[in-house]
């Protein structure tokens, strides 16, 4: 077992686990885009919100971890639904740029609110994941995988499986896909399109919040953690803005590429590598790997 191959395997595992978290957040983004065609620039801040809700409930209100997680997700979903009902529903019909800028404004507001409630200090989340690391046997050597990374991957895989089931088989999921495909047609067959919008935002917010809790448990939380949203935007562009599969593949791919960049080029260049990939994809295949090509009509 040569050290180079061991390196490659270990770094790939680490990268895939990080990529799983990107993928989860990407799903939160894609769900909203698919149903409402809104690019949610505040996706990173939704993650932050979920992490801080968990922090407030678990660390400050001293609730047991599982209760705190469930309540935090519910709270995040409520916020998502609230935003849809009172802000985004009023913006139906406005240009995409305007709505995009509204999400940017929302991101600022959320950061400010978090800073007022919890200050800008970085904090640690209570641990709720098991501590045992994974040692994957590989020939004569063992590949090391940190416990949080491994568990994040497992949790994300479980959530992903649930998503696929929901979207394939449950009426609500089918309604969402119908609305995404053609709003007018969905209306005419009796689908409650505004309801679908609410559902999409609530689901997107919950997903982002879950990802936020996992990311927060790895690297702590702070009012600046929304910056991860930019990496997520790269993921969904690479995967295709309206493709759940694309978010999955894109997330894993970007996570893996970042780890490879760290191994072969150096840790400092991780973020630049991500943005160079973004530019390349935008120039070569702007709609991503799995996105639907928008045909513009006059």
């Amino acid at each position, binding site marked *: 077992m040569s*050290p180079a191959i061991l390196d490659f395997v270990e770094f790939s595992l680490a990268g895939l686990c990080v990529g799983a978290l990107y993928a989860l957040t990407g799903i939160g983004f894609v769900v909203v885009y698919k149903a409402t065609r809104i690019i949610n620039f505040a996706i990173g801040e939704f993650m932050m919100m979920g992490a801080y809700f968990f922090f407030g409930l678990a660390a400050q209100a001293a609730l047991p971890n599982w209760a705190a997680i469930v309540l935090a997700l519910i709270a995040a979903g409520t916020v998502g639904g609230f935003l849809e009902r009172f802000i985004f529903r009023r913006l139906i019909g406005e240009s995409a740029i305007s709505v995009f800028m509204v999400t940017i404004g929302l991101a600022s507001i959320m950061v400010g609110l978090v800073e007022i409630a919890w200050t800008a200090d970085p904090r640690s989340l209570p641990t709720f994941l098991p501590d045992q690391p994974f040692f994957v046997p590989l020939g004569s050597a063992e590949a090391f995988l940190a*416990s949080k990374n491994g568990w994040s991957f497992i949790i994300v895989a479980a959530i992903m499986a649930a998503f696929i089931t929901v979207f394939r088989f449950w009426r609500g999921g089918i309604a969402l896909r119908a609305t995404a495909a053609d709003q007018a047609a969905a209306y005419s067959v009796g689908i409650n399109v505004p309801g679908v919008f609410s559902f999409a935002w609530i689901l997107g917010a919950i997903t982002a919040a879950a990802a936020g809790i996992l990311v927060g448990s790895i690297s702590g939380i702070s009012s600046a953690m929304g910056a991860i949203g930019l990496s997520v935007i790269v993921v969904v562009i690479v995967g295709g803005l309206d493709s759940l599969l694309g978010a999955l593949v894109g997330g894993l791919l970007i996570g893996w590429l970042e780890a490879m960049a760290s191994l072969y080029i150096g840790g400092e260049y*991780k973020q630049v590598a991500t943005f160079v990939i973004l530019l390349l994809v935008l120039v070569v295949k702007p709609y991503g790997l799995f996105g639907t090509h928008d045909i513009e009509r006059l």
Partner: protein
Amino acid sequence: MRTDRRKILAGLGAGVVSSTVPAPWVRGLRAQEASEIPVAIASPMTGVFAFAGIEGTDGANHFAQYLNERGGIAGRKLRLIVEDTGYQVPQAVAVFNRLVAEYKVPLFLGDSTGFQKTINEEVNRRGLLLAGASFASEIDDPQKYPLQYMPGPSYSAQVGMLLKHIAATKKGARIAFVHSDTEFGRDPIAQSEALAKTLGLEQVEKIVTPPGSFDVSSEVLKLRRARPEFTVFHGYVMAPIPEFMKQMKEARIETQFMGTFYSSDLGILQKMGDVADGYLGVNAYNYVNQEGVSGPAMDFIKKANGGKYRTNSYLQPWTNLTLGTEAMRRCIEAGKEMTGANLKAALNTIKDYDMGGVIGVPISVPGNSIGVGRIFRANLKAGKMDPVSDWIKAEA
């Protein structure tokens, strides 16, 4: 309906604006009394270093109280003007330009290495003394930074103290540096790598993390390859040190974690959790809750805070102001004008000065820094830091 809402918004807007309008005329009209000496402070009271800024502002205000109770600076009262910078260099520069023009201060306290380096030309032009929260080795150079000083040993000196401790503990030990890819993080590395070589230590890895990255697993994998016996962190306040320590323990890397001034604060280490127990940090000061430490300054601090723990960031401006006002006092008593050059010369005459318990030994300021520090081990179960070395003098 729409017009009503518009009218309400218009009314609110007008109200907000009119409530602030008289203020600009009122600001700056406060007459400066001749029996006061103003000192301006640019403090990061908001933003990522808010905890340091708030602690620092308290430290400065308490020092002013302490000093004025004891007769001030040769009979004149110390007056502090504090403004927030949000830890942004352009904002700090704007605050500097405005406060120095308005109040003609002999001493200015800054908030970051970046600010202190970039404002250097301006400080030299205007002729005042500058100190701050930075321990950058580059600033520890009286040729390039003639009017600046720092409240402790430079980062290079700090890492040097850690390296000497390592060399004394185990000859030829394997060490690794983990630092952030910022100016703060890069500062002592080149010098420290050279010193490690001179001391016969084997540097097996150097990890550079981009600012704001959240995943350290790939870096931990590299450290797993390298198997350092001592890991020195620098350039971070908290994250991602605890995550590194946790994952490295998981990866069964047997290593002693060490860090420089900012990560050596008890409050920060407690926030990191149990994984930080046993962390070795180099500090420029005694801890406020340390046993067996007393002196007029330390006693005042303990009383003024009612036994509440105060972090290193509280003691920094305390030290800066102690030295700065001492320089002013010497200038006044020698009958010299308080220009930057005169103040610096007076500062450099400080030899074997007693810091009243804040620092355990008498100090001198021959150049731009105080060359002493002490290594402490985190004893989180007992809630304190135990000294593992005596006060070490950094080599000049």
